[in-house]
């Protein structure tokens, strides 16, 4: 009885409010938009079915570019986060044990701090009259304010800043568990520190690298707030286009088709992440 309730309640809830909605999205992506309430033809009537929204998805340059931009920007941002996050996690894992708790907590706190507020903080810093430009001009390094905001630079910065904790924490968890005896063995066998790192530590931390990278990459691809507040018109990302189709253009079938496309793109990374988690949990 208790068993049935404990399995059934979350299962039914998540099927109803997480899985079923995606079926409906798929349904609405197959019908034409209408100027009515709700603004789409009924997906229950097969006579309404059409692939028009998907044709648009493939042929509209804006959509194609938005998908490509999202993948490209998310990829670079993930690489930058890895370059910043790996040395951080490595230093945390090597820090004296009594410090580690505090160091980990300092990485977690930003995760609890409002995402929107953290993006807003960068708007303050990056705008033409913002602190960075004021400082650069005050020091005489530049004469004119640099166009730091409203562009790809700011979007990369925002993504790395917002998702860095997701990179650091799995890396730290992997690196902290590594057996120091392995490194000592490499050392005793005459490996220089850098070589020992490249041949022992780095390969052994690959699961952490993969988990952290996917945790940054997946949400970055679909990100809306950062490209909206920090991005310019030059390189729209798919999350923002989906939002615009839905809220501004009220084309719900197009937004649904974009959602299906985005989910299809992210399916492989999401499954890869789950596989890594499963292996980590069983070992």
């Amino acid at each position, binding site marked *: 009885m208790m068993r049935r*309730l404990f399995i059934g309640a*979350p299962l039914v809830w*998540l099927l109803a409010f*997480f899985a079923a909605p995606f079926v*409906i999205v798929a349904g609405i992506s197959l019908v034409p938009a209408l100027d009515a309430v709700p603004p789409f033809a009924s997906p229950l009537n097969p006579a309404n079915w059409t692939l028009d929204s998907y044709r648009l998805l493939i042929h509209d340059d804006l959509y194609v570019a938005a998908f490509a931009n999202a993948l490209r920007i998310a990829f670079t941002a993930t690489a930058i986060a890895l370059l910043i996050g790996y040395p951080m996690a490595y230093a945390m894992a090597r820090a004296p044990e009594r410090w580690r708790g505090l160091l980990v907590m300092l990485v977690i706190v930003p995760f609890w701090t409002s995402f929107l*507020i953290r993006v807003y903080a960068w708007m303050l810093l990056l705008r033409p009259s913002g602190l960075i430009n004021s400082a650069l001009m005050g020091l005489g390094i530049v004469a004119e304010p640099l166009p730091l905001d409203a562009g790809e630079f700011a979007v990369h910065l925002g993504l790395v800043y917002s998702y*860095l904790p997701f990179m650091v924490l799995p890396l730290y968890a992997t690196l902290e568990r590594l057996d120091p005896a392995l490194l000592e063995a490499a050392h005793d066998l005459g490996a220089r520190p850098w070589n020992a790192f490249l041949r022992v530590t780095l390969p052994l931390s690959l699961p952490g690298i993969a988990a952290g990278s996917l945790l940054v990459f997946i949400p970055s691809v679909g990100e809306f707030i950062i490209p*909206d507040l920090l991005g310019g018109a030059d390189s729209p990302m798919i999350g923002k286009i989906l939002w615009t189709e839905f809220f501004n253009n009220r084309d719900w079938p197009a937004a649904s088709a974009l959602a299906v496309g985005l989910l299809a793109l992210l399916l492989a990374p999401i499954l890869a992440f789950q596989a890594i988690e499963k292996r980590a949990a069983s070992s």
Partner: protein
Amino acid sequence: MKRNPPVLLAALGFGYAFLYLPVLLLIVFSFNESRLVTVWAGFSTRWYGELARNERILDAAWLSLGVAATSATLATLLGLAGGMALARFGRFRGRLLLTGLLAAPLVMPEVLSGLSLLLLFVSLDQMIGWPGERGFLTIVIAHATFATAYVAVIVQARLRLLDPALEEAAHDLGAPPGRAFLGVTLPLLVPALAAGWLLAFTLSLDDLVIASFTAGPGATTLPMVVFSSVRLGLSPQVNALASLFVLAALLLVAAALWLTRRGASGTRR
């Protein structure tokens, strides 16, 4: 263990400075007298005063707090059940499905969760006349759904550390499963549930995207107000509000940490 070389210490320092400096500067500038958000003109708390008189923000704050408390409570119950099922029930039919459903919301982009839930609500309303006007209830359902996944992670991690011998002992002494759960497992899980509730509360309070999709025209949460005013331009009142958000987050993290520490008793080893 060897000491960290300077290069690594520098990397660590850079990382933390990168994470914290922008928010610190934001807090400093929330006490700026000037209306020009980025020009310092002396210390003042006037924007906090104006914030306290801003009806629109106060209304939104109350809605957000209500949504956060309700959805966190729902998510804690569902996450407790799901976490227990995965950590303690061994093999059962639907285990793989439940594992996937509890993990997927953690990585699903918000625009997808938001859009799909809204379309579900609209379709349901057409077919069975429920949930009617979107607002408090629909945002609560949306937030409870993704927060359940986070609570389940915390509950599972805690159960993995708990010694199953304690529950087995209750079993061996003849306690029926319900009694063993209520008398032994649940009390030991309280710190994890409290930490999960706090995380769910924070995630709900913070969410803009999913709330924007699932809220009706009559309901505006705090992040939605902040977002629309930020889109119009920087505002000193938002600086003050943002600083309060950061302060609240610090208090919540401290509470969650304290609970986790306290919960460390009764674990294995």
